[in-house]
């Protein structure tokens, strides 16, 4: 019965959410229809109960408005002193979030959830303070009036005539763990008001009295009750889903709202939110970035950004789409996201834009297929300064001065066309003369865009009429046939100018997009090549500063997760803010809801695993950073930088792990050497010397014992020497190279290894024509001694050992071979690793350092060492030394006196 099975993804999501919830504090909202219903009182009573249960309660902010009963409830609760914030010459008392976090109570009371903080505080809104408290694991009790809910804000405004500026995003309300409705029938509230139990400030008395009309109170009460009921309903459904009561998996509705640049955008978004709520649907707010965006006025751009932000606050997912055709882009996106309903605005603005709007609606309606389309009308009285600006920018996309040039050029070209036409007029018919004007219009439109093109169209018609159409030198027309000519001429001119201008425009948009894509591509390529964090930061700054016309700083965390500035200091950058951004993984500073008074914008560099740092942006021109498409670019860049930082981080981690593994292995080997290989000879020494101390040993025995002691000591000396040599070679030894014969090193090595070689037959074959070599005599002697001693150690007494050298091209090969049992079956080069022995359990003493030392020395000389078995049996170790060009040698001064 797979039908009953809950969606596994949803379950997983729920588990994750439960985990987060367990760490987070719980939020309880005391929700009421309006002021005076007793929310604060209810909150305080609930807190007192909690305190009696032993919960540590702290009063963060409580506004009693001088109500006696409420003040009495405060008695016995711990109060957090307010912080004094200076603002415009006044000192205002504000909630002190740092102190609250520092005191870490179990439960904190924060009145007036929708309150806006004094500018200069950490967050713009109090609910953001609450978010931080919850994230710190502190439970929060708070109060809220229904008129402060963002989505109901305009409805309440319409009912009461008072628009409230302090609003709370609906998602915050919806995500509260508990909402407790504090309800008081309107009559009772009014009587309380009359009895003076609800205190009203003197100045506001009249406004408030208007507000507290019975009709208003009833409407507000209904809104509050319904909003609470919605929540309860949602909880009920969630509960049923949790308990697998609902047998069928309902396809969720998804709403897409097309955010425009018009003044009705906010209304459109609120309407969308309400629709989404009533349908219990997810909703997405999109803005489609078409080429036309380039022509929008500042006010319109600001409106788009504000609209998207509002949608985000109301709980929508927001996206900016790129495309040339609005309707097609919108519908394509709607299909990929399984959107069932599309909400668009209908504007009642100027004629030009209405033509455009209508065609958009028709476009959408024609291609929407199974997507329902909702149209929300805009109110006319919401006109603001944006409209004429829009008209201007729609018509004249160019910069002002160029625009002026364009119009002058349009007039001049008409003049020119007239001149040429007057020359041609005697020889050609008027139909052909018209063509000259059309050519002029096309040229103007191509060069200067739509506006001058249109002007040229009209001018051409007028001039043509005036100069060439009989009666000449008059605008009147004798032959009505010419009216058709004018009409068609104007139409053709307009269409051509429109088309060419658009073509030109789209080409410039394409160039602009291409530039952005290239910038991203270049950044990506350079970041991919960066090997260290420092390189990444350097690339970031050199690439992004010109792109955004801003100064940039990058902060990266050290091992203790505290941020350090990793680039040049940018004036006004604040490590404290960056740290907050890093800890909370949210942007802050300029243009955001957190610390908006800071002059820099701080973006977290979020990588898949964790935040890798903070990017601080100091824009020189606001729109270079805060345009939606630039913001999108900035975010993409930040993501790329974060990914690159993460990649570098993991490369370092991997390298560290390798190094750690290697040094761990070495440490273990050294320990085993010290514990076993040093202790064995020491044990022998102690035993033998105590034997000597006893005294009753014969002189032969004494000689034996003394020999043994000497052998053991020398063995130990060898071991210590090897360990020291290895350490010395590893720390990078400087070669004392000199030009000399190989014979010298061989001679001294044989003398040094004499004692070990006593039981073996050694033969040395050095051809007389060996070149002079450049080598460190001490170290090469060490190699030869190690090879000879090894040969002696691992072969039975009486074996033959041969030391040979021969020239082989540009190098000299030196071999030490024996006719012993040969090497165990082992990879050639592995034998030369540190602490590697042919047979690890061998009773032959040694620690496996000798050959490692040999390899280090030979490689430092630019040679190669290798080991092999020879036939019929025996081992051969050979190494090479580069022969090189020997220095000038003295001539034999045979007859020197």
């Amino acid at each position, binding site marked *: 019965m797979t039908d009953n099975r809950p969606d596994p993804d949803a379950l997983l999501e729920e588990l994750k959410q439960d985990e987060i919830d367990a760490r987070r504090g719980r939020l309880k909202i005391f929700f009421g229809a309006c002021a005076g219903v007793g929310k604060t009182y209810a909150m305080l009573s609930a807190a007192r109960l909690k305190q009696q249960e032993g919960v540590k309660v702290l009063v963060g902010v409580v506004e009693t408005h001088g109500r006696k009963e409420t003040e009495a409830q405060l008695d016995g609760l711990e109060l957090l002193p307010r912080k004094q914030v200076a603002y415009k010459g006044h000192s205002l008392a504000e909630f002190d979030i740092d102190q609250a976090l520092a005191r870490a109570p179990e439960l904190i009371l924060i009145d007036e959830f929708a309150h806006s903080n004094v500018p200069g505080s950490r967050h713009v809104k109090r609910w953001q303070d609450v978010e931080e408290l919850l994230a710190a694991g502190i439970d929060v009790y708070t109060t809220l009036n229904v008129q402060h809910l963002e989505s109901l804000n305009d409805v309440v405004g319409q009912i009461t005539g008072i628009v409230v500026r302090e609003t709370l995003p609906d998602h915050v309300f919806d995500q509260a763990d508990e909402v407790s409705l504090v309800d008081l029938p309107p009559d009772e509230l009014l009587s309380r008001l009359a009895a003076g139990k609800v205190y009203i400030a003197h100045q506001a008395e009249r406004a408030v009295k208007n507000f507290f009309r019975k009709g208003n109170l009833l409407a507000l009460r209904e809104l509050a009750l319904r909003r609470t009921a919605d929540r309860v309903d949602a909880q009920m459904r969630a509960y049923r889903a949790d308990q697998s009561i609902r047998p069928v998996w309902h396809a969720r509705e998804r709403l897409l709202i097309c955010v425009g640049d018009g003044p009705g955008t906010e209304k459109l978004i609120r309407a969308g939110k309400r629709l989404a709520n009533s349908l219990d649907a997810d909703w997405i707010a999109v803005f489609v970035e078409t080429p036309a965006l380039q022509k929008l006025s500042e006010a319109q751009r600001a409106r788009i950004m504000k609209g998207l932000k509002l949608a985000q606050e109301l709980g929508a997912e927001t996206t900016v789409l790129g495309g040339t055709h609005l309707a097609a882009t919108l519908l394509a996106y709607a299909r990929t996201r399984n959107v069932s309903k599309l909400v668009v605005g209908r504007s009642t603005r100027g004629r030009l834009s209405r033509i455009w709007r209508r065609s958009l609606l028709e476009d959408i309606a024609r291609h929407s297929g199974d997507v329902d389309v909702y149209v929300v009308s805009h109110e006319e009285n919401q006109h603001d300064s944006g409209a004429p600006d829009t008209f201007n920018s729609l018509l004249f996309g160019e910069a002002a001065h160029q625009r002026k040039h364009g119009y002058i050029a349009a007039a001049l070209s008409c003049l020119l066309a007239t001149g040429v036409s007057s020359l041609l007029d005697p020889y050609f018919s008027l139909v052909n003369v018209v063509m000259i004007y059309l050519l002029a219009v096309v040229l103007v439109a191509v060069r200067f865009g739509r506006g001058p093109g249109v002007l040229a169209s009209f001018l051409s018609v007028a001039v043509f009429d005036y100069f060439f159409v009989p009666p000449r030198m008059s605008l009147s027309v004798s032959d009505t046939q010419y009216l058709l000519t004018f009409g068609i001429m104007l139409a053709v001119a307009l269409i051509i100018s429109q088309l060419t201008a658009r073509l030109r425009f789209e080409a410039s948009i394409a160039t602009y997009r291409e530039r952005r894509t290239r910038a991203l591509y270049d950044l990506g390529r350079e970041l991919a090549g960066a090997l260290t964090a420092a390189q990444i930061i350097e690339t970031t700054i050199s690439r992004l500063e010109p792109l955004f016309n801003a100064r940039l700083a990058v902060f990266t965390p050290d091992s203790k997760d505290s941020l350090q500035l990793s680039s040049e200091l940018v004036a006004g950058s604040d490590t404290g803010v960056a740290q907050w951004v890093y800890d909370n993984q949210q942007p802050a500073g300029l243009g955001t809801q957190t610390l908006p008074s800071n002059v820099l914008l701080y973006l977290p560099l979020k990588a898949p695993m964790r935040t890798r740092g903070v990017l601080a942006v100091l824009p020189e021109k606001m729109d270079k950073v805060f345009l939606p498409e630039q913001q999108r670019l900035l975010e993409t860049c930040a993501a790329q930088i974060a990914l690159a930082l993460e990649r570098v981080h993991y490369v370092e981690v991997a390298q560290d792990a390798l190094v750690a593994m290697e040094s761990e292995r070495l440490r273990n080997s050294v320990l085993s050497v010290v514990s076993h290989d040093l202790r064995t000879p020491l044990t022998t020494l102690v035993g033998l010397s105590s034997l000597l101390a006893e005294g009753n040993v014969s002189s032969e025995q004494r000689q034996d014992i003394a020999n043994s002691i000497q052998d053991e000591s020398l063995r130990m*000396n060898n071991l210590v020497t090897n360990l020291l040599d290895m350490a*010395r070679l590893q720390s990078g030894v400087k070669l004392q190279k000199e030009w000399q014969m190989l014979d*010298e*090193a061989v001679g*001294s090595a044989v*003398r040094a290894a004499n004692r070990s070689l006593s039981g073996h037959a050694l033969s*040395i074959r050095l051809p007389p024509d060996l070149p002079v070599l450049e080598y460190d005599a001490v170290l090469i002697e060490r190699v030869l001694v190690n090879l000879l001693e090894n040969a002696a150690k691992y072969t039975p007494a009486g074996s033959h050992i041969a030391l040979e050298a021969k020239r082989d091209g540009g190098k000299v090969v030196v071999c030490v071979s024996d006719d012993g049992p040969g090497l165990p079956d082992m990879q050639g080069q592995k034998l030369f690793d540190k602490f590697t022995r042919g047979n690890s359990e061998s009773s032959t003493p040694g620690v496996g350092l000798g050959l490692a030392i040999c390899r280090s020395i030979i490689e430092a000389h630019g040679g190669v060492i290798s080991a092999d078995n020879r036939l019929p049996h025996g081992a051969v170790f050979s190494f090479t030394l580069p022969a090189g060009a020997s220095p000038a*040698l003295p001539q034999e001064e045979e007859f020197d006196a």
Partner: protein
Amino acid sequence: MNDQPVNLVIIEDEKPIRHFLASALASEDWTVHEAETGKQGLITVATRKPDMVILDLGLPDTSGIEVIKQLREWTDIPILVLSARTQEHQKVEALDAGADDYLTKPFGVAECLARIRVLLRRRQRGSAAAEQTFRLGDIRVDLVNRLVYKAEEEVHLTPIEYRLLGTLIRNAGKVITHRELLLAVWGPSYSEHNQYLRVYMGHLRQKLEDNPATPRYIVTETGVGYRLLEG
């Protein structure tokens, strides 16, 4: 040996080594004075006027090289230096500063006594008249006529080879650094031309040694210089 009792000073901070050296030397009926630090050593040498000084290069207060330099300011008594194997450059430095020979730790008593005897004998011989012939194994050098014989057969040496051999003979039994040899044979302007020395030493060995790769007479003190073995 001469009848006068031999007087020695050991400057060494490690007590076990000092102790072992003192008992080894005492068994030869030599008088041994011990000093623990460089300063003490300088005072002891000044007051005891020994025939020879045995000096450890790694002292706690002053460097052994410094002690050698100070001693050489007023005395030319033989100095035998004790050092570890990995300190070739220190050995050379000590020898160039005026030490006469060195011993690498760890060493045996026999080796140590042999070195001391060589140095003591040289000191006594220095006062005696120069010898006319030098013998070493089957090699005989007629120092007056500048003729060299191996197994009673004359060996032809070039002037430089002969000067090289002569320098080695004058320092027989004692180590002689590359620098000293270059100075003595080629003169001060050639003191850095080590490869000259190597090549001529190779020629000399070819002519005098039975098996030049494993020389019996002229041995290489790797990284330091050469030594003409006696006896």
